[in-house]
């Protein structure tokens, strides 16, 4: 009797196993606001307590950096800009040293197309606060600021002091801060023992590990329509960053004015609508994505090479997609990449 029941039980189990079930791994998702945008943290395969602890740490770090790095808040960067304007050397906050160092290097590699010294111009356009502006600033004001030719080369760093030789210089790490924060965040997550995560700061993200049995699926938003026009899979540690003219903008007299300013002209770039970069470091990717938009369809590839980026994509103003060969090997398009992805009315 006993053995009969055991065998019956085994029989039932065999039947059930034939309909093999999938096992679900735990995935934790957190969201909070910082840097003027939505920050999302996704953790896979960790237990709830570790995930919660990681989230609290990331949220705290981001909110601190937000205070310090955004020049319109009363933090380290705002104070530093005031001191730089005096033209005298001063002891610089250690938080900024690696940032200034890397930003200067990236600015040089990009030939000045990535230029975090144009803080005054950025503020003039008004994309820095919570509300977007409605009208472009007066042309004279723009020209005056451009004439000052602020660049990172005007900074003189003799540890621990910093000074600026150009009164027009004002630091704004807007095109770099999110990537920098993401890199620090990923380091913190790793140190906390998280093995699989995505940290997404308003669309600039870095992912490592996998989601259970499969890699992370990352979508690239269409610049003019809801939804996604391309996607990639990430499983080794990689960042993917996008810069676009649709993130902060206003329309005035039927022209689009957006937050990616060409340092050479003082006006928003017009030759491209979005750029995407894949690279290990989110900070480098962030700076490069912005610089690619400034470089435009004629020079984007040379710029990517100069910045050491092998996987990049640019959508020009006509909606045509340009992509490096290394990225073409892995990117999956959800549209026809051979044709323009925007209707002329949307440009």
């Amino acid at each position: 009797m006993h053995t009969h029941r055991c065998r019956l039980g085994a029989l039932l189990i065999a039947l059930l196993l034939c309909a093999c079930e999938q096992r679900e791994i735990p995935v934790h998702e957190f969201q909070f606001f910082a840097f003027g945008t939505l920050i999302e943290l996704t953790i896979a395969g960790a237990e709830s307590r570790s995930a919660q602890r990681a989230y609290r740490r990331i949220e705290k770090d981001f909110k601190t950096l937000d205070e310090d790095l955004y020049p319109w808040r009363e933090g380290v960067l705002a104070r530093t800009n005031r001191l730089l304007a005096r033209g005298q050397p001063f002891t610089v906050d250690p938080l900024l040293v690696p940032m200034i160092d890397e930003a200067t290097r990236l600015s040089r590699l990009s030939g000045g197309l990535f230029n975090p010294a144009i803080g005054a111009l950025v503020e003039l356009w008004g994309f820095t606060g919570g509300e977007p502006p409605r009208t472009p600033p007066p042309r004279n004001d723009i020209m005056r600021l451009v004439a000052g030719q602020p660049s990172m080369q005007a900074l003189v760093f003799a540890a621990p002091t910093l000074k600026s030789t150009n009164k027009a210089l004002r630091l704004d790490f807007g095109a770099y801060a999110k990537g920098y924060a993401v890199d620090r965040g990923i380091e913190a997550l790793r140190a906390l023992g998280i093995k699989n995560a995505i940290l997404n700061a308003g669309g600039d993200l870095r992912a490592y590990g996998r989601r259970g049995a499969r890699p992370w699926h990352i979508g690239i938003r269409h610049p003019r329509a809801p939804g996604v026009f391309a996607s990639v899979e990430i499983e080794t540690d990689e960042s993917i960053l996008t810069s676009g003219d649709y993130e902060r903008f206003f329309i005035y007299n039927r022209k689009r004015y957006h937050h990616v300013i060409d340092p050479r002209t003082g006006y928003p770039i017009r030759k491209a609508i979005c750029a995407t970069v894949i690279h290990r470091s989110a900070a480098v990717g962030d700076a490069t994505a912005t610089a690619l938009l400034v470089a435009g369809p004629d020079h984007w590839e040379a710029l990517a090479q100069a910045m050491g980026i092998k996987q990049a994509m640019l959508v020009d103003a006509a909606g045509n997609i340009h992509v490096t060969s290394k990225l073409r090997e892995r990117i999956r398009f959800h549209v026809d990449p051979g044709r323009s992805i925007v209707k002329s009315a949307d440009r």
Partner: protein
Amino acid sequence: MEFEVTREDIRIAWLTALALGMYVLEMAFPSPLPGFKPGLANIVTVAALVCFGWATAAWIALLRVLAGSLLAGTFLSPGFALSLSGALASLMVLGLAVSVSRKALSEVGYSLLAALAHMGGQIGAAYCLFIPHAGLFKLLPVLMSAALVFGLLNGIIARSMTQVLLAK
């Protein structure tokens, strides 16, 4: 070389031939869903199980899968892998059923078990080898329902077959 051919061998041979015949017959009919077949050849497997025991049925089922794939030109193809997985799964389940009790189930019961296990084994193999997509499991309820229906029908036909076999 001389082979000694036993009575058992002859029995297996012609029963396998019969199962093959049914398999070929089934190929003539288009199937509404890929991998979805009434499994007429299982009639022979089940009848053989009831009349001559699990070992004989196992020989017949596996030989049929092998010979069938050679005949259809699908040997070592994905279809072959699915067929084999289905056959192995149903044999395993039949073996368990027989070890619990030889007499409790009739041809209908065995056929039902075999059909469900066969379908389950095929889907499992498809998932592990070819289509690791959760979407595959959406098909499970429909395919298993079909397996249940055909399992019952085949079982009833297998009943008649055992009468014939035992009469011989």
